[in-house]
């Protein structure tokens, strides 16, 4: 997030907001009467509105996908290396939309927004969200922007789950789904990590049942631990060994509980940074959305049946060292698509960076995405 702005970036961007007054029903049964979505767009929508690409964000990211803010040039979008002029998703050709999901904490209506009925922040009373709910809200934004059919919906990790859900919820509304570093559902181990993160937040004395805003405090300690646990799962063992190994911060052991190893220092730094800008209620809900995602569940456990109605083409990408959502999990998705004779290509990128690889510069990965988007751009559109 602290990279210097590059001159092939989309440059200065301005976040926008869309207000919706049509009630939104959540999968959990809750309904909210009105809400706002924060979003950004890059590039230009063409005359037949066929070049729109929706980028779905993962756990801690937002609608700020590319470019930077005039008042904060160091705040570069989280996928700026992927999206921009001449980049794999070329904004000279595509109209790219980033949206902060409902329940988020970057501008869209979420737990820290004011509930108009009470005049107080939603806090603990904000509905528990699911991937399906996010996709439903994104579809309303698409409608608002006049996009009947996306050229592509793309995302990595939890963002990829949304790109996959789009093909189930709105099969006719996208031509391509780009599913990167994904899994068709969370493993018990994945859920376990999420539960540790949630328990850290829920047991923080400053949590106050999610209504900490009223108390003028934030469950910082819990959120820090949650981020540390999460962060460990995004990196590979090898990557950590190369980056930190057993390096000591001060060159010698102090036989205390101060930060001694570099990895500890790194985790604490990441945790502090995260706890400053992220909302604990949002974090709780996003981890639940991850846990609940399981398209096969309503089809007797058959992902093949869950994906029987898809119409789009797919590019599925995994990374060899991703142990959080391993290549095997992506292959489950590919197999279910093959069973349905869907148009799918699958690439397994040999990268050392673990789950985080989907965010990083990697020549093979970026060339592949670029080639796929070249094909999308070249397609004749009905």
């Amino acid at each position: 997030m602290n990279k210097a702005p590059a001159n092939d970036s989309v440059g200065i961007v301005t976040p926008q907001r869309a207000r919706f007054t049509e009630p939104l029903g959540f999968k959990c049964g809750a309904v909210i009467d009105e809400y706002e979505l924060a979003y950004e767009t890059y590039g230009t929508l063409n005359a037949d509105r066929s070049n729109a690409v929706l980028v779905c964000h993962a756990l801690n990211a937002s609608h700020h996908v590319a470019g930077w803010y005039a008042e904060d040039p160091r705040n570069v979008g989280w996928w700026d290396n992927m999206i921009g002029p001449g980049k794999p998703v070329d904004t000279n050709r595509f109209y790219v939309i980033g949206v902060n999901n409902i329940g988020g904490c970057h501008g869209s209506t979420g737990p820290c927004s004011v509930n108009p009925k009470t005049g107080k922040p939603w806090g603990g009373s904000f509905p528990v969200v699911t991937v399906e709910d996010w996709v439903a809200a994104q579809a309303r934004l698409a409608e608002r922007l006049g996009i009947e059919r996306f050229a592509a919906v793309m995302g990595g990790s939890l963002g990829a789950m949304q790109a996959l859900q789009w093909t189930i919820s709105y099969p006719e509304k996208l031509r391509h789904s780009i599913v990167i570093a994904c899994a068709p559902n969370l493993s018990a181990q994945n859920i376990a990590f999420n539960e540790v993160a949630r328990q850290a937040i829920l047991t923080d004395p400053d949590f106050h049942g999610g209504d900490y805003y009223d108390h003028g405090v934030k469950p910082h300690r819990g959120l820090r631990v949650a981020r540390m646990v999460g962060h460990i799962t995004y990196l590979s063992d090898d990557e950590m060994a190369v980056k930190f190994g057993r390096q000591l911060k001060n060159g010698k052991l102090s036989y205390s509980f101060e930060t001694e190893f570099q990895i500890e220092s790194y985790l604490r730094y990441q945790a502090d940074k995260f706890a400053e800008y992220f909302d604990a209620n949002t974090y709780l809900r996003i981890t639940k959305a991850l846990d609940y995602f399981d398209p096969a569940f309503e089809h007797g456990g058959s992902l093949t049946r869950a994906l029987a109605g898809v119409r789009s083409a797919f590019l599925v990408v995994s990374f060899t060292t991703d142990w959080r959502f391993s290549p095997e999990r992506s292959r489950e998705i590919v197999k279910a698509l093959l069973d349905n004779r869907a148009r799918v290509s699958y690439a397994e990128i040999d990268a050392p960076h673990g789950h985080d690889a989907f965010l990083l510069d990697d020549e093979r990965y970026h060339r592949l995405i670029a080639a796929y988007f070249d094909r999308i751009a070249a397609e004749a559109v009905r």
Partner: protein
Amino acid sequence: MRNGNGTAAHRPDFAAIAGWIRLQSSVLDLGCGDGSLLKYLTETRRITGYGVEIDDASVLACVKNGVRVVQSDLERGLSGFEDGSFDYVVLSQTLQAMKNSEIIIREMLRVGREGIVTFPNFGYWKNRLEVLRGRMPVSENLPFEWFNTPNVRLCTVADFERFCAERGIRIVERKVLTRGQPVTVMPNLLGALAVYHFGNGVKRS
């Protein structure tokens, strides 16, 4: 992973393979290279096809060519594919470069209703002559030197037919080619490239 002139738009075995493929059938091409064969079959036989490739550059080439490809190691079998899910499974100029030759032939007949395999015939007279001269053959169909060849399981027409007979694999049709031309007389001696169409034993398709 495909050998020789795998990136050429049309190789001699392409037309031979296409001749056996029914219109609008489904084809899985193992070791599909840049997707040339699938592209050719899509244009000539209107197939629905997928390729399997391990090589990054080839996977990228497939995407550029608009060919559906699944990046996977054939040596690990075809566990990502359902039984009987394709009309044809093709292994073109790749068999000789695989360690688990026997397993892949079985996998082809599990996933496909029929299999098509092509390989350089090591029994071709030019190869025999080279060996008689005391050298490993290097030719159009075997373009590598002994020290850099990916070919680890070279066989002859006679070897492959015995292999099939011993395993109850039914050979539906055979074409043996030299410089793209069919060879009918003494194929194991005069043929450079073997192309086989085979299926599970007993019932005829």
